[in-house]
């Protein structure tokens, strides 16, 4: 499996050396109103470093996806500060957050979310097109990125012709094609078998290890722990701890 090569720097918001990729504090988020409302986040604090692959783990319903959505700027929290790549998202307008997402964040979803009626090249070119690139340029870059994730020459194929692992690799190509600084993944391996999950994580790890990137992966899947640089554990709407994997893993192993 080829590992993505170092990519050129994106235009950056004001990010100082040593600054955190993500720094959120005191996030609360409730869904629904009145008696039916659920408090999904209850004052969550979280940080992610540049150059690292950060895992967020925790039991189902503890608020992982909600936290990830807040970081990605797709969900507005009820309270708390969200600083991503040096930009205070909670102080930006809706349109500005959308622009920010488009330029600096790459997304990988659990269900891949490739568009079935578009071929692989077209799917992978979407972020570039959204950023205003011309069709030819976008498709060329998309093909190169498909090559890097091991799908050389498959550009004219359609998602339904691929296995789950291959589809997720297209999704990775799509997430990386516009050279984003932060890549956000929700359960990227849960629909994959062990082997392909492994390959996908290797790819993400390769991206994360670059000095000015950060990859955040939410997961249930213990098989991916070994790829983490850091692991944050969530429970009941809060982040309990966020430690280097080297520290956290032996302890978690002991628990089991």
């Amino acid at each position, binding site marked *: 499996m080829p590992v993505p090569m170092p990519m050129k720097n994106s235009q950056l918001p004001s990010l100082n050396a040593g600054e955190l990729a993500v720094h959120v504090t005191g996030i609360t988020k409730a869904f629904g109103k009145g008696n039916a409302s659920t408090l999904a986040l209850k004052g969550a604090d979280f940080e992610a470093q540049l150059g690292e692959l950060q895992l967020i783990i925790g039991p189902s319903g503890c608020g992982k996806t909600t936290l990830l959505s807040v970081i990605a700027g797709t969900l507005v929290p009820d309270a708390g500060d969200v600083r991503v790549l040096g930009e205070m998202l909670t102080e930006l307008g809706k349109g500005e957050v959308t622009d920010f997402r488009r330029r600096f964040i790459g997304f990988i979803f659990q269900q891949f979310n490739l*568009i079935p009626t578009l071929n692989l090249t077209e799917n992978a070119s979407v972020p570039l097109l*959204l950023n205003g690139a011309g069709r030819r340029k976008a498709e060329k870059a998309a093909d190169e990125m498909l090559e890097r994730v091991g799908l050389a020459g498959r550009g004219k194929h359609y998602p339904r012709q691929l296995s789950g692992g291959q589809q997720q690799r297209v999704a990775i190509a799509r997430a990386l094609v516009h050279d984003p600084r932060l890549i956000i993944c929700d359960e990227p391996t849960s629909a994959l078998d062990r082997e392909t999950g492994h390959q996908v994580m290797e790819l993400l790890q390769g991206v994360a290890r670059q000095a000015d990137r950060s990859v955040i992966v939410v997961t249930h899947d213990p098989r991916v722990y070994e790829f983490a640089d850091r692991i944050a554990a969530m429970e009941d709407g809060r982040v309990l701890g966020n430690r280097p994997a080297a520290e956290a893993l032996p302890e978690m192993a002991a628990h089991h």
Partner: protein
Amino acid sequence: MFHLALKMLIGDKAKFLMLLGGLFFAALLMTQQCAVFIGLLGWTTSHLSNIRSKLWVVEARVEQVNELKPLRDTDVSRVRSVAGVAWAVPLYASVLQARLNDGNFKPILCIGLDSTSLVGRPATILKGRIEDIRLPNSVIIDDLALERLKPPDGESLDVGDSFEINDREARIVAICKSDRAFFGYPYVFTTYDQALQFAPRQRKMLSAVLAEPAPGMTAEATAARINASVPGMKAWTEDELYWATIVWYFKNTGIPFSFGTTIILGFIVGVAISGQTFYSFVLENLKNLGALKAMGASDLKLAGMLLLQVMSVGLLGYGLGMGAAASFGAVAAKKGQPPFMLPWELMGAVLVLILLICMGAALLAILKVRRLEAAVVFRG
């Protein structure tokens, strides 16, 4: 991004065809019905297209060209004497019964033209000579009459054949082309004097006076002069009488209502099918649209994509609908019925309606996508 928007829609073949079908059907139905309606209105004014005259001077109470009230023969000279009238000639126009060789009767529109000038004569003679109309007992019939006045098992009529009008022989000396009349009666042209012989004797037999404005005068100005100086008669320009006739049919018949109903139905069907189909296309693609939204597609961009999708299908459906309507028109023209007329104004109006339908469908979808939370893509 927009080329992908189109591909996304066309890629969903079932929805695409359904949407296209709905818009095609709406365009076809509206166009075809309107064209038949306009054609029918054209039939109501066939006198005006078959008997060309700049000025029609008729009895003062006449409201439209198919209900001419009789005048006195002397009324022609009253019109003639008005300053500003270059010339004025009599016209006879009435429904008479033709008796065929097999004894059957068929209604005809008998038109009597001034025998000297032949003003109002048919524009196109298909067979025979127009001048022969001046021979005694002679008539020129139109091509519709060939078929209508033919006895059920007899041979088709031709120049030289004859039939009877009111016990008098009417010998066919020529065959002309004419625009069809509302009730489908064929035109039979003869001279004014001959027409008076064919028609049952009455005190007043003149139907209208056809007049020409003096050189340098407009038809309107001459009409105004006639109206000022000839009481009991009214001068219309060709155009005025045309519109008065059409307005009369609008007001006094149920035709506009029944056509209007079908046309509105076409519009509603178009709205329903395309709105519904496009909306369900959007619902089915909500996940993809959410993913695009998460990836930073602005609401404006998505709205543009949706609009482009629906508009391009709309234009395609419109084009196909127009093509089908035109083919229908070609067949109708060949068969002589139903009436059909497709002016560019109608094509423009239907285009506007189709685009309105599309805009409505797009608006529904846009509102839906606006409310869509980008975060939905993270939910399994």
